[in-house]
């Protein structure tokens, strides 16, 4: 054993800010707990099981295939847990557990590890997982069980065996508010959208909690305030203009902001630092781009929801934005 030298040599600076990458990830994970609890409140045991399956898929993949970080165990930086939770929150409550697990494996494996691990991926890993599930299991991922006050009963096809779609345990399924609006022009009440008493993905229904989480994360400087500000303002303005043309046919800006996955995607996925631009000006381009794409897809696209594709598309544009949008250097 060689004794550690008492006096160490290195170069300045010698002080460091308290915020570290694992701390950012863990703090994100903590803010997701109330959102998960709301999901359990509305969707019962199913919410917990779907989350557990998705998280398990992420953690197992990261543990066995991930690079050992400076902390040894690759799970300790908390980022795989965040991905698993986020993926779960984008899934419907009656989603088969085995699919949620596979989604987790794909999110970490194809969304993060094949790019080189933490910090190297171009796309948000949770959304890569969800995009895969949407492509592979289009029926399961668009079958929505409404909140019905049951806590212990399972929903939909949670228990379908691997490689099967499964028979729904109950025939209850409804359209999401976005689909209702798109295909029947029937907007949901804004109060329900705020409180979450609607059908939808686990984490997207309770707008109020998401808004609070957003404010908290901005105050703690965990997320860049420009991203929610840019996206939400763009959606409000753009959909407001469209709404003014034909109020009965197009959704109101308030509905656009609160319905569907916009808040969840804005607060937790678009703000992923890895897949968003570096410079403030780049971030504005990125967030306004997401806002425009969301409205375009929701109103004129074939799908009722467009948040996932909007974010993934702007993720793809991020390296380009980083390349061309350079901050003006002092003195030039």
């Amino acid at each position, binding site marked *: 054993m060689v004794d550690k030298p008492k*006096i160490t040599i290195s170069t300045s*600076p010698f002080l*460091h*800010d308290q915020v*570290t990458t694992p701390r950012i990830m863990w703090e994100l994970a903590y803010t997701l707990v109330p959102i998960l609890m709301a999901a359990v409140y509305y969707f019962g045991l199913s919410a917990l099981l779907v989350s557990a399956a998705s998280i398990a898929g992420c953690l197992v993949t990261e543990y066995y295939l991930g690079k050992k970080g400076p902390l040894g165990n690759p799970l300790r930086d908390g980022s795989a847990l965040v991905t698993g939770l986020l993926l779960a929150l984008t899934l419907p409550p009656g989603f088969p557990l085995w699919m949620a697990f596979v989604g987790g494996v794909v999110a970490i494996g194809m969304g993060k590890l094949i790019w080189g691990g933490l910090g*190297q991926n171009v796309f948000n890993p949770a959304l890569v997982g969800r995009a895969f599930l949407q492509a592979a299991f289009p029926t399961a991922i668009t079958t929505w069980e409404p909140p019905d006050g049951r806590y212990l009963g399972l929903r939909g096809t949670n228990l379908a065996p691997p490689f099967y779609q499964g028979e729904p345990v109950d025939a209850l399924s409804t359209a999401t508010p976005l689909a209702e609006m798109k295909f029947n022009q029937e907007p949901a009440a804004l109060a329900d959208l705020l409180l979450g008493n609607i059908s939808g993905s686990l984490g997207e229904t309770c707008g109020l909690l998401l808004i609070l989480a957003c404010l908290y994360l901005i105050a703690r400087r965990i997320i860049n305030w420009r991203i929610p500000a840019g996206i939400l303002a763009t959606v409000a303005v753009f959909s407001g203009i469209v709404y003014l043309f034909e109020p009965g046919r197009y959704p109101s800006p308030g509905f656009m902001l609160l319905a569907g996955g916009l808040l969840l995607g804005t607060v937790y996925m678009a703000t992923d630092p890895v897949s968003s631009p570096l410079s403030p000006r780049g971030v504005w381009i990125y967030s306004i781009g997401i806002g425009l794409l969301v409205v375009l897809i929701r109103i004129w696209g074939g799908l009722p929801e467009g948040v996932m594709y909007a974010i993934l598309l702007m993720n793809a544009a991020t390296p380009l934005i980083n390349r061309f949008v350079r901050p003006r250097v002092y003195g030039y």
Partner: protein
Amino acid sequence: MIGTAQNELKDRLLTFRHGVHPEEFKELSNHQRIERMPFVEEYILPLLQHIGAPSKPLVHKGQRVRRGDMVAEPGSFVSVALHTPVDGTVTDVGLYGHPNGQMLPAIRIKADPFSTQQLDQPPQRQPEELSKAEFIAAIQQAGIVGLGGAAFPAHVKFNIPEDKPCRHLMLNGCECEPFLTCDHRVMVEYAEELIDGTRILQRFVQAEKVSIAIEANKPDAVIALREASSRAGFPMEVVPLKVKYPQGAEKMMISAILGEEVPAGKLPIDVGVLVSNVGTIVALSQYFRQSQPLVERVITVTGTAVRRPANVLVPLGTPMRDLVEFCGGVTEAATRILLGGPMMGIVQKSLDTPVVKGTSGILVLTEREVQDIDTFSCIRCGRCLEACPLFLNPARLGLLARKGLWDDMEDYNALDCFECGSCSYVCPSGIPLVQSIKIGKAMIRERK
């Protein structure tokens, strides 16, 4: 009185864009009055204590010298004279350890144990009688350099070209480095000399306006200087600035006060501004009024591993070990010795080197403050971009440095970086950003 100043300081304070807020640690020493370091047995005076050519020795082994005698003359225009701080005997002119890590020529002087160490130099001609050229020559002979840390010869900086008028003389009392309090104490305790030195300098550079910038965490210095300037009938604006690192960098200070940027590759005088550290100005006054060349300076000896943190008036050439002993020595927990502040200071491998003109602080830290944090991949959070006071892209520069893409680094303005370390300070992934940029800058320069 201090309460009112603090209230006033809470109002909107001027500052620059970006920057960071490290913990200050100033309370360790900011109320300690400046103490005079007793004379020790031996002094080592390196011939290079400033930016530029080394001084040329004028003494030989065995020669007797008196406190204040010139022992080395300026080696060129960008160089200054060097004086002995003690009565004693020259015992050697040879290679000695320098704080910059090299072995460099130095004069060793054994102090006379029975001397009273009185300064007994002939009086200087008063600056009012001097022409500008004589004034510039005089401060070169006085050995005065910028005491903020860079130790750039003062006469070069004050020798303003005729075609670049000085609109604004700005004194720098920001002292934004954590821990350091020497400038703070100098402003409080040497307010009179500071005003006097400013008056002397203002006359020669013909500045239309004089102000002094002080970070708002030094309300007593703000008050002391306001009072001293009104007592002396010398109009000087005392501007409190927001506490933010690196507020004391020339460019940042100018941005804060004037809202103007110094164009890339230019000097502050190109926008009509002359910036000087407060200690330098006090040295100016002491030279002309008390005939004392630069033979001593105030140094903050501090850090959580120093038993008795203090601000000490130290004769130049004092071995650091003696100075730290004077401050009670270091505790067992000491793990790192620095010259200067924790953000830009230079690490020392031992205390065997002497105090030089550019030494503003000796900092001895423990594991607790200097904990090396784990290095993760860049998560592209952009915190470094929002910290960099020059609006550079440290994340990108760090990546390019790791890949050895020096040309691309130059394209991303690596050479503009003045190495304040804000990027490394904020990086949550613990990436040594400024350290990589320093390497990149050296590689770019080497290839030129």
